């Protein structure tokens, strides 16, 4: 079973994504901050990480660069309320950049495309 890590500071969204992606047939773990995500990434191997950008503490962009530094092949999807980061140089190393919406179809499609 493909494993996915969802990093988001919003609890409701963590529940939503876990519910929906589990329904899609993935094994979903969640983390409420970049720091706890690093811990889980050290303990487990994930096929994909869904990363929020605006979070208390370390933001998603910095977190991504840290993750990629350690796990070079890690698939990462930036999933954020902000559209403006899409043009940032830092966000280009993500496999996908999605703006949050209640319709998770695009997210699901992107995951399917990336990891099957």
């Amino acid at each position, binding site marked *: 079973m493909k494993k996915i890590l969802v990093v988001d500071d919003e609890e409701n*969204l963590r529940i*939503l994504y876990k519910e929906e992606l589990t329904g899609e047939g993935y094994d979903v773990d969640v983390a409420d901050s970049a720091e706890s995500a690093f811990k889980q990434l050290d303990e487990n191997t994930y096929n994909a990480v869904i990363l929020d950008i605006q979070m208390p503490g370390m933001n998603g962009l910095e977190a991504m660069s840290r993750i990629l530094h350690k796990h070079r092949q890690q698939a990462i999807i930036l999933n954020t309320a*902000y559209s403006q980061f899409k043009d940032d140089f830092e966000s280009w190393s993500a496999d996908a950049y999605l703006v*949050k*919406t*209640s*319709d*998770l179809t695009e997210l699901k499609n992107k995951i399917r495309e990336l990891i099957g």
Partner: protein
Amino acid sequence: MKNKDYKILVGDTDTESLAWIKKILLEEDFGVWTSSDTGEIFRINESGDFDLLIFDIKIYAQLIENNFSIESREERDAPIIIMTTDDDFDLAFSAVKKGAVDFLDKPVRVKRLLITIRNALWHSTQIKQIRRDQEELASLKELYERIINGIDYGLVVLNNELRIDSINEHLRKRQRKGTTDIIGENCYQYFYNQGTICEKCRVREVFEKGIPVKYNLVNKAVGGSNYYLEVEAFPLFDKRGEVTKVVQLIKDITQRIQLERELLEKKEYLESLVEHAPIGIFSTDSHGFIQTVNPAFAKLTESEAPSDPIGMNVLDIESFKDTGVDKAFGRVLKEGKPFEADVVHCRVQDKGETLICSVQGVPLKGIEDDEITGLIATVANVTEKWKLEESYLKRIIELSIFKEIGELFQGTNDLDDIYTIALIGVTAGQGLGFNRAFLLRYDRNENILYGEKAVGPSDALEAGRIWSDLYRKNLSLQEVFTHYKGDPEEKDTRVNEIIKKLRIPITWEEGFLHNILFKYIPEKITYERDSEYTDQKLIADTLGCGTFAAAPLISRGKSEGLIIADNLITGKEITTEDINRLSIIANQSGAAIENSQLLKSLGEKVEALRQANLDLTKNRDLLWRAERLSVIGEVAATVAHEIRNPLTSIGGFTRAVLREIEVIDKVDTNKRFLAIILEEVKRLERIVNETLEFVSPVTPRFDYEDLETIIEQTFNMMSGEISEKNILITRDFHQGIHSVWIDSDQIRQVLLNLFRNAIHAMEDEGMLSVITEGDSENIRIHISDTGHGIPEENKNKLFTAFFTTKSTGSGLGLTITSQIIKNHGGSIEVESKEGEGSTFLITLPTHKREE
């Protein structure tokens, strides 16, 4: 001297001896005083002027002991004879040493006594004589020295070896050398530090020839300048007639020489001045016969006295005859009255000219008496100056004409008036005095010159009538113009008919019209029948006059037309001056036309500006709306992403519910409701997206603004909303709100929001009051309404984004308000009671705060 003239004092302790001597001396007829007491002898001696003193040795010893000193005796010159006893030679000798002239042995014998007395008296007389001679000599010497030293020139006496025998104080001081060892020194050594006799010295000559000489010497002073000496040397002869000494008198004549030289220079200068003076100068003797003249005068009168005016009588000089000057010269010589005449018309006969001269004459008088010895006169040719003054005067009159015309131009902007003034200025007698004047306009677009207006009589008869009329009235140009305008009758019909027919297409590339219109050259045209210039012919034919002047009308650097003027009636010649003046009036007219046109275009521009101002006001409203949207956008940006998360969540769950709801009853209803919720969420998302797209950072524009004005502006903007309801606005503005560091647009937005909320909170009527107060730190604005108030539970949500109680509200108004106030470094608070109303209190810093 007889014996009785001698007074003899005898002192002796031996009274017998005393009496004896007295008896003998009285017998010899001497004046005798005797005493045996020393003290008494002292007194007697003091009181009487004795010629001889005879003392006993004892008395003398006592006297000497009591300071009967030799010195005092010597002054008196009375010889003393001492009487000694026992042939005491030693004692006698010592007495003589102490001043006695002789001595007698006691007992004294008569013969010996008398011989001794006579010797002593003779000796004393001799000594006195010698002393008197010496004194006389000394005082003579002093006198001589005083004289020699008193004179203020040098005196030196030289012997035949040219050594200095004596020298006076003056010379000694002049040499500035010590007084010692002058006598006997060589004069050349002493005076010039030379080893041999000076080259120019003539003292030797005086020694040899025995005759006085006088000569001058030039020497260099220490500073390098010359000084001059006058030397007189004369011989002193001895009894044999040999020259033994030469006396030299030396005077420093440097000052005199300099003075003479200066005088000479001054004299030469004055002579040269007279010689080269541009005015004629001459002098006569007391009869008026010319004695001296300078070349300028000779030149002035050369035609009548080609050889030399000297010797002529001033009264006979042709130039002055019958000018009044001849008589004036006569009066100068007769009465001694000076005279001055500025303008004298002197004839210069040969050339037939009349010169304007300025003549002055003053008498010459003797130095000692006031007798008139002649006269001295100056004659200056002031013809040119006089002509210049005349032309200045003319020019001033001319300028006053131009000034008057200029003032007339200033009084009007009407083009027809301007034309009339120009033409009147050209034709009026008070103006340029041309007979007729025509104004032609040039149409640049059509390239056509057409006649516009003319002033002038049609024939000599009319001219005579009009001109004499005007002349009688003696009107100013202003009056002529007023007169001309005020007369309703058609004026100068004939000339206007002529000119208005004129339409000339400008096709020439040369000729006077081309020159005037494109090169701006004023000209006098004299048309000749066979002239090839068609433009000249055209104008000459139209005017009926072959000679005319023309000048361009220039406005804004371009030709507007021209003025043509002629003297058809009088045939008076047109001078260069006339053309120049015409040109000036044409220039003035051009400027006036320009002003008139400027004024017209200014009026148009003012209208355009007014329109632009209106547009600007409209645009300002639009701008204000755009600004407001931009502020909303900024606030929206900060809140939009905050609501995206819940939206995502809500939407997400709704979808989940929608998927699984089918297992429960009332599936359809629930489905429909949930679908609606989803629809709403979608809409919200769309709004958020749109809002976010609109986001752009807004830079506040802070400045010191008048808050009172901004409040009033906001009320004005809301006047429609206010008048919809019956709402009373009260204001209570305090000091300190006129200069506040704010972004006026944003604060206007804040006030708009709060006022609008207040109005919404009130039903159909109520009161909105604004109170301001402030100091140098902060200003406070209280905005109170009498509306329904805010429920307690809503108070802390008031400034939260998207909170609203209004059905149509965005929920952003107070958020934006709060954000703006925060950006200003201020705060906003609210006090409210349900059913009574709300008060918003805004606090803002008064001044810019350093970051």
